């Protein structure tokens, strides 16, 4: 049994905006019955303002597919096309209070239907042949390299399993898993390279400060918290970073080690090799 949030259950059992708009201004159709889920999104759009006046969905699929479709229609109503086009699969999943990781592809389907509808509205032909032109990686579910790369970059995916959860690629016969592995490897190698190039550039003081803050939040604090510790950024003076250890880190005999071997090392690696971390007691 899946652990669905109350919001998913609510929108599954009592979906909002189920149905189809007659003579819609835009239509987006994605998925297929063979793949296990499909969504038809119809929109009514005010041509002067570009505001989405109404949105309806018809979905074949499981509870999370139905809930994701319904959530999408709720999220875009009242927004302009431009605003709506910024919605990502993550936003849909967040609106639902999260989805089981194996079901993230349902939120991706929502995003894709919206994109298809917007493209349809803008007059761009919904090219069926694009699929044939593109490099299809997963033959079972017809997933292109472009779609995989996009899911990786937007959702920070690291493993083949992640990619399957978000795009379905690799979830059928599994023969394309080595290819997905290769795509992942190449993508992340490129990221590291471009980061290294970035590091070569001189950061302004403001950039450096915000990068230090970001690194502490994303890379350092979560790791300390695992052991019940925490960190406070006290001040930054050129390359000197003053911090205070909190929680179980406070008075921990390994505190000094943590500062030099973990915190300073991370900041040197990700911000500037000249950084020195000092503890404020």
């Amino acid at each position, binding site marked *: 049994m899946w652990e669905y949030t109350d919001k998913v259950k609510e929108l*599954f*059992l009592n*979906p909002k905006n*189920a*149905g189809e708009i007659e003579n819609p201004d835009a239509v987006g*159709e994605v998925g297929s*019955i*063979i793949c*296990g*889920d*499909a*969504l*038809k999104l119809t929109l009514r759009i005010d041509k002067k303002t570009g505001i989405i006046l109404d949105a309806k*969905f*018809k*979905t*074949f*699929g*499981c*509870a999370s*597919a*139905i809930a994701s479709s319904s959530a999408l229609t709720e999220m875009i109503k009242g927004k302009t096309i431009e605003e709506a086009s910024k919605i990502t699969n993550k936003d849909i999943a967040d609106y639902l209070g999260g989805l089981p990781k*194996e*079901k993230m592809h349902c939120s991706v389907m929502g995003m894709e239907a919206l994109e298809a509808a917007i493209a349809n509205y803008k007059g761009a032909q919904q090219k069926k042949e694009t699929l044939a032109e593109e490099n299809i990686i997963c033959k*079972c*579910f017809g997933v292109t390299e472009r779609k995989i790369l996009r899911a990786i970059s937007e959702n920070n995916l690291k493993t083949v399993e992640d990619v*399957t959860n978000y795009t*379905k690629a690799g*979830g*059928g016969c599994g023969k394309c898993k080595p290819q997905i592995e290769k795509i992942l490897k190449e993508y992340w190698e490129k990221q590291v390279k471009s980061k290294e190039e970035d590091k070569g550039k001189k950061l302004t003081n403001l950039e450096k400060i915000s990068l230090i803050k970001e690194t502490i939040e994303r890379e350092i604090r979560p790791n300390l918290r695992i052991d019940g510790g925490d960190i406070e950024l006290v001040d930054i003076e050129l390359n000197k970073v003053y911090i205070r250890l909190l929680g179980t880190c406070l008075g921990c005999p390994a505190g000094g080690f943590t500062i030099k071997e973990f915190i300073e090392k991370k900041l040197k690696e990700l911000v500037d090799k000249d950084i020195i971390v000092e503890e404020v007691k």
Partner: protein
Amino acid sequence: MIVYVDNNATTKIADEVFEAMKPFLTDYYGNPSSMHTFGGKIRRFIDKARESVASLLGAESPSEIIFTSCGTESDNTAIISTLRSFPNKKHIITTKVEHPAVLSLCKYLETIGYRVTYLNVNSQGQLDLDELSYSIQSDTAIISIMYANNETGVIFPIQEIAEIARQKNVVFHTDAVQALGKIDFDLKKIPIDLVSISGHKIHAPKGVGALYIRKGTKFSPFILGGHQEEGRRGGTENVASIIGFGVACELAKKYMEEENKRVKYLRDKLENSILEKIPNTRVNGDRINRLPNTTNISFEFVEGEAILLMLDQKGICASSGSACTSGSLTPSHVLRAMGVPFTFLQGSIRFSLSRYNTEEEIDYIIETLPHIINRLREISPYVK
């Protein structure tokens, strides 16, 4: 109200079974292998349970039964034991519709040098026995074919299969986990060498199974340990559950004929009413050679998990072969092997009954289900 119609997944423990188990969970906690009377006297009760299991199977002797922890262990034991006994034989025959307990093992064996033939089934879920015959090779070690399918209830012609295997002198194993207690089979008449069964499908608790090993069949233990089960399966006996399994077998034997008639009536009523009330619906699998308690029905253009969750909302417990319910992205391997049309493939629901189901419960399902299918079809893009 809870209406439990998922008995091929597991069953309620019968009151008689629970009562019989209780003393062995409280006062009689001794180890049957002990020398002292307190422990040693428990051996007698295990022997009695073994007799009950043997009797339900029609085994020649209780010593042909060893207790295991579950059906999966029995399947693994049967296949691995046989492969060890015939180290020069590298070929296995099974079917595309086996339970994962056999299929996953076969997939693994393929990675370590064994060749596996997976027999096809037709649209009714039935085998072609000619295909079986010509698949047998000089180094075929074992044929492992289930008695009845857990998803569709389809029964294979085990008597004929056993005779083919016997003729070609190949060991024959059957996973009879779903057949036990639902079909009357007599191992005195059917020459099967190894039979896997499980307690929790016949109103005994989870955590106990058994393997029938015909006298004279080469055997090599799978779980190595103490001298329990005459050295054929190490590990201290799961005493209370074994006692429970014994009682469950006695009850199954006693009620099989009468209860199956009633269960079959309820299943048929459920199936026929659904087909009649809900359009674009089909039954998956052979409706004649089938367990009396199982029906697998597909609803076109709707998805199984969505149906299940709406049924759950109404207190009805069933299961589905859709991709979404399994956590994998592909629908049931059984339905795919049968070539169920793709518009029906994701929308399958399995109802599996037991002797505890009542006619009121079945009527409640018949009344509830059409609304659910209608609601889902209303929001399906494939229904105009």
